[in-house]
């Protein structure tokens, strides 16, 4: 004998102690699938016979079952379950998680149970207890179907149990995860046969209209989202075509509420002939009865929804929330047919629909129909493509995976909708409106973010808490925050006696990572700035969903607005936009916005306070303290014992002066906007594209087009491409660094030639900085070059910083790729929030 039930079932074993439940369970199921009440009692008490723990044991049993079912795991309940009341609780649990309850009943004779019980060593029950269990079992077992067990198997002898040869776990009908597409998914047809044929032809399929048959497809599978019938002129023709296509495996079809109601009518149930059913019934009059029979069968066999393409696509007539996807229950079917309603009715007497999509956060894209809309809009990875063809709108198909919409207009208005189909008055899309307020659950607590470059990046709870404060108090509107740059590690410390950092270590590092070619870029003496510049404020509204009169934004690497004065910010952006216009940038990249990674000069613009209160103050204190010390030592110099000190202090006084010279380089007088300069070094993204696949030389060349010229704030970044095998080239780049830094330059950034460079282990550090000897005085203090200081400063660990840099890089890339891929903002925000959270990790701020 074989037992068969769905692969996702709650299997409830029923039987008195000693009836063989545990033995059966062990034989046919994996140990992890069995939840045993005895084991739980033992867990809670050290002794299965402890009285008074039943309540706690049941609570825990139910909790474990619930968690397993939530995760979609078949679960076997090994408890006596003789009491109907207990079984009903289990059925309720199965329903809550949309899982089929299955009962396997061991209805053995008293003697079998008593004998087995006697041979038990762990737990011996009094014979009357077993008798009682058997009596309870027998009193309720005949009603097991009414309890809600659609499938049950009963065994009366041990031999019958022995006879089981196989347990077949049936896959759910809705599970078509292996079908990857491509698909053409078609919205509510409602008997609009002409429009359907036109649409199919437009999509590239071949239709024999008269024969009501698709003769050939273009290799793409069709999916019909239901509501094939009612209201329209030719429901039978639509049915015939779709039935045939499904039989020929050219198409899949899920049922709509109208199709379901037609089935009820056909099977003789009492339904009202309204909402267009009357037309369908009239159109079906006189049809071949045999065909009607096959129609009934076909309609009855329609599966509520399908999960396709490895769980990335779900199709259902009225949509489907995540917890119901891939499950089978009456509630799931109801949802697929009607969606969720609030229980209220609107001014037109129609049920008020609950907007399940507003809370949807699933991995699968959900394609559905049911509610006519003027224009399909992606919303939280769901889309309603019922464009109300029968009401004079259009018939729409969605191509998957391309996510492209194809529509044909209705030939006429066949019916008038009870509720007018209104275009939203809002100028923002549904998604943009929704994204005005993001959900805190997407960012707080411990987070795991899947990225393309790093499989899973964990964000610590404490770091997320810090980021929440920074983001909430100082962050720009999350709609602008589509990217945050990663932190950058310095090079390992130099082996040369006079240097803390030197290019040699950077070259050596990349060579060791298997990189053949690097790009050295001048490190500007400014602040990191992310610039988003749009063609006009219309683009800001349409693409970014921000309703304000601006053409973009400039923000810092911690997501704060760069210019406190908005008029300066917008004025500066206007200059950049003008340069882009003038040099054909919008056309070259076929875009109406740019996102650039830049350095904005001068540094004192952002660091005025720091310069005065820290650098200026240290310089002043050092200068006058040294003066005093040297004067006293000079006076004491008649005493030879004071000479070494005098020498040392003179040397140190010189360092304090060098320090002052170093920070003065950063103080430009800023009279107005014309004194700001912007040096873009990464062209991050434009509409529909990111440029992480382009090498840094490409970035430098593309951006140079926008640099230079009278009154242009955009400047080019000096760079050198270095072949690491070419000693002369390496030497030249090192010389170049010396020349820059001797002139007071900050240093350079060394990057692998390709933006994302993979070696056999991982992707290589995106960049390493090599800072100039003089510049480092303002990081490590005026006297850092004193040998006794330098020796100790060279002991610094870089590993945390480097791991952070990689994670932040992966998150930044992911954020931008998600944004250009038009995923809901919450998914973009999660990544930039992650970068900010990473930045609250304690690492040496001087690295």
């Amino acid at each position, binding site marked *: 004998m074989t037992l068969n039930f769905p692969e996702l079932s709650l299997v409830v074993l029923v039987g008195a102690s000693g009836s063989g439940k545990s033995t059966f369970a062990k034989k046919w199921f994996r140990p992890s699938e069995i939840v045993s009440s005895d084991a739980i009692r033992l867990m809670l008490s050290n002794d299965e016979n402890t009285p008074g723990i039943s309540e706690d044991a049941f609570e825990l049993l139910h909790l474990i079952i619930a968690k397993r079912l939530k995760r979609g795991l078949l679960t076997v309940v090994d408890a006596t379950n003789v009491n109907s009341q207990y079984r009903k609780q289990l059925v309720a649990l199965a329903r809550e998680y949309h899982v089929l309850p299955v009962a396997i009943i061991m209805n053995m004779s008293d003697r079998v149970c008593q004998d087995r019980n006697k041979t038990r060593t762990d737990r011996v029950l009094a014979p009357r207890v077993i008798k009682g269990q058997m009596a309870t079992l027998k009193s309720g077992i005949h009603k097991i179907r009414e309890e809600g067990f659609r499938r049950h198997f009963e065994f009366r002898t041990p031999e019958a149990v022995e006879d089981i040869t196989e347990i077949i776990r049936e896959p759910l009908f809705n599970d078509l995860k292996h079908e990857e597409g491509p698909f053409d998914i078609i919205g509510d047809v409602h008997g609009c046969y002409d429009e359907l044929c036109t649409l199919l032809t437009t999509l590239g399929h071949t239709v024999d209209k008269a024969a009501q048959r698709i003769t050939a497809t273009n290799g793409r599978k069709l999916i019909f989202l239901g509501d094939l019938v009612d209201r329209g002129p030719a429901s039978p023709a639509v049915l015939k075509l779709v039935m045939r296509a499904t039989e020929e495996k050219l198409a899949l079809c899920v049922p709509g509420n109208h199709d379901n109601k037609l089935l009820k009518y056909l099977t003789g149930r009492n339904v009202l002939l309204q909402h267009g059913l009357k037309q369908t019934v009239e159109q079906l009059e006189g049809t071949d009865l045999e065909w009607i029979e096959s129609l009934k069968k076909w309609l009855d066999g329609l599966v509520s929804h399908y999960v396709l393409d490895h769980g990335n696509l779900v199709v259902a007539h009225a949509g489907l929330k995540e917890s119901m996807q891939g499950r089978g229950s009456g509630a799931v079917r109801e949802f697929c047919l009607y969606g969720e309603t609030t229980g209220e009715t609107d001014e037109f007497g129609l049920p008020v629909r609950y907007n399940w999509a507003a809370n949807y956060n699933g991995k699968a894209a959900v394609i559905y129909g049911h509610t006519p809309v003027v224009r399909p809009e992606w919303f939280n990875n769901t889309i309603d493509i019922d464009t109300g063809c029968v009401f004079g709108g259009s018939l729409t198909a969605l191509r998957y995976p391309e996510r492209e919409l194809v529509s044909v207009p209705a030939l006429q208005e066949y019916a008038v909708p009870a509720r007018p189909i209104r275009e939203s008055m809002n100028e923002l899309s549904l998604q943009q409106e929704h994204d005005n307020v993001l959900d805190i659950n997407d960012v707080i607590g411990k987070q795991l973010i899947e990225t393309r470059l790093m499989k899973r990046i964990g964000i610590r709870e404490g770091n997320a808490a810090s980021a929440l404060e920074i983001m*909430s108090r100082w962050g720009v509107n999350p709609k602008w925050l589509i990217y945050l740059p990663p932190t950058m590690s310095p090079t390992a410390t130099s082996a040369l006696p006079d240097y803390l950092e030197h290019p040699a270590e950077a070259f050596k590092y990349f060579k060791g990572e298997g990189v053949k070619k690097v790009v050295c870029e001048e490190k500007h003496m400014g602040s990191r700035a992310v610039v988003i510049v749009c063609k006009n404020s219309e683009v800001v509204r349409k693409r970014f969903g921000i309703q304000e009169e601006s053409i973009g934004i400039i923000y810092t690497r911690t997501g704060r607005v760069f210019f406190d004065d908005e008029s300066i910010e917008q004025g500066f952006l206007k200059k950049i936009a003008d340069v882009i216009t003038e040099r054909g940038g919008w056309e070259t990249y076929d875009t109406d916005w740019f996102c650039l990674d830049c350095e904005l000069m001068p540094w004192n613009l952002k660091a005025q306070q720091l310069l005065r209160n820290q*650098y200026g103050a240290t310089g002043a*204190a050092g200068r006058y303290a040294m003066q005093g010390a040297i004067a006293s030592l000079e*006076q004491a110099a008649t005493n030879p014992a004071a000479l070494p000190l005098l020498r040392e202090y003179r040397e140190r006084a010189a360092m304090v002066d060098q320090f002052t010279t170093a920070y003065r380089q950063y103080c430009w007088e800023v009279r107005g906007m014309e004194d700001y300069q912007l040096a873009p070094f990464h062209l991050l993204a434009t509409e529909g594209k990111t440029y992480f696949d382009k090498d840094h030389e490409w970035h430098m060349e593309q951006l140079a087009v926008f640099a230079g010229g009278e009154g242009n704030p955009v400047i080019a970044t000096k760079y050198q491409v270095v072949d690491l095998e070419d000693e002369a080239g390496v030497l030249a780049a090192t010389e170049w660094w010396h020349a820059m830094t001797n002139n007071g330059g900050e240093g350079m950034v060394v990057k692998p030639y390709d933006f994302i460079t993979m070696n056999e282990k991982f992707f290589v550090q995106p960049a390493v900085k090599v800072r100039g000897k003089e510049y480092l005085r303002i990081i490590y203090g005026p006297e850092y070059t004193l040998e006794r200081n330098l020796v100790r400063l060279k002991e610094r660990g870089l590993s945390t910083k480097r791991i952070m840099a990689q994670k932040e890089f992966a998150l930044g890339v992911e954020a931008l790729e998600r944004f250009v891929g038009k995923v809901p903002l919450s998914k973009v925000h999660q990544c930039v929030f992650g970068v900010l959270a990473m930045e609250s990790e304690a690492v040496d701020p001087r690295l």
Partner: protein
Amino acid sequence: MLLTITNSRYPATDLSFLLHKHPAKVQSVEVMNGKAHVFYPEAGDEKCTCAILLDMDPVGLVRNSDANSFALDQYVNDRPYVASSFMSSAISKGFSSALNGNCKEKPELVSIPLQLEVQISVLSIRGGEELLQQLFQPLGYEIIAIRHPLDPHFPEWGNSRYFTVTLKNEITLQALLSHLYVLIPVMDNEKHYWVNEEEVTKLMNKGKGWLENHPSREIIVRRYLRHQRKLSDNALAAMTVSEDAPLPEKAARQKLHDVRLQAVSDEIARLNVTSVIDLGCGEGRLIKLLLENKQLQRITGMDVSSHSLEVAASRLKLDKMIESQRKRIQLIQGSLTYKDRRLHGYDVAAMVEVIEHLDEDRLLAMEKNLFNEIQPNTVVLTTPNKDWNLTFTTDENMLRHSDHRFEWSRAAFNAWCEHIRDVYKYTYEIKPLGEEIEAVGAPSQMAVFSKQ
């Protein structure tokens, strides 16, 4: 970091006996994170100068720290160059016998006032020359102070807080060193180590005979003890035997905040409700008041800063509360601009002096969240009244707090309330908070929004 002491009372070299440092030697003593070099630029009978040169280790200052000292977080720092509490430590280490009034070889010298001149380069003075005068003049010093510019290259940066200072007095060496020991860190207003009870004893000891009657003793004590109220109160009490120096009252601002909180709490009491959420609860002062309202069964404080919540928990003494009381309170970290199920289901939401801390372009998100998502029956919201600022300034752009992003006049607040009424279906009533002054109104304003 350089301190020189010159004696010109014949024979001037008495100074070297008192300091117990030989004029012909250059000696070094170890101090925490550095050394102090002691040498004599001049050692004649007419004039004898001893220098103590503090040589701090800038790397050690950042890298070394133990439980009782603070590590600097920046290498770029004035600490290696200024006379600070490090100098006091160096004095007590290098000149310990002199500081304690001992002189083995010539004990009679200890009590003789010398002609002393001290030079310090540089001295960090938070409080400027005025403070310097205030501290040293009563002790009989002649003072010459040269204030240094931050950077002569950038005159617009102005002056620094660094001075080269000369002090002259006819005084015993012990008295001079005691003054310097106490007053150098007082001027700097910082200490490199943690201040505890022991520090009070040190102060009483070093201040003996001059601090008790110093007109600026309060500022000296408070600064020396790093503004630890309890310690300085004790020290001051020990010094003041009879005259009752009243402790300064907290500013009137504090009182205004109390008025505000009481008004909000009264408003909530009138509403007859059982649950309140305090959005932006800060350190939990409103919650403390609300707890007295027995009707409230559920009081939740939300704040964006986890640090504030920790302070709130300790101020409310949550860990010591009896269970029935503890159960009424919940503190959660959250943000006004993010949707959050945990904020739903309260009768009243209070938002006391919070909205002005949001950037104006984030108000839309906050509004939608509060009035559209959370939708409490009542919202009690307060914010400063900008009109009232005229009572203390004529500067239009001046805000009352550095983190305020804006302040609304009464008209602006009313306009915002109207907007909320129109968009989100709430009615509102505005009430003044605090004493009303003609033409400018009350310092704060409160709106009570009710869901229609």
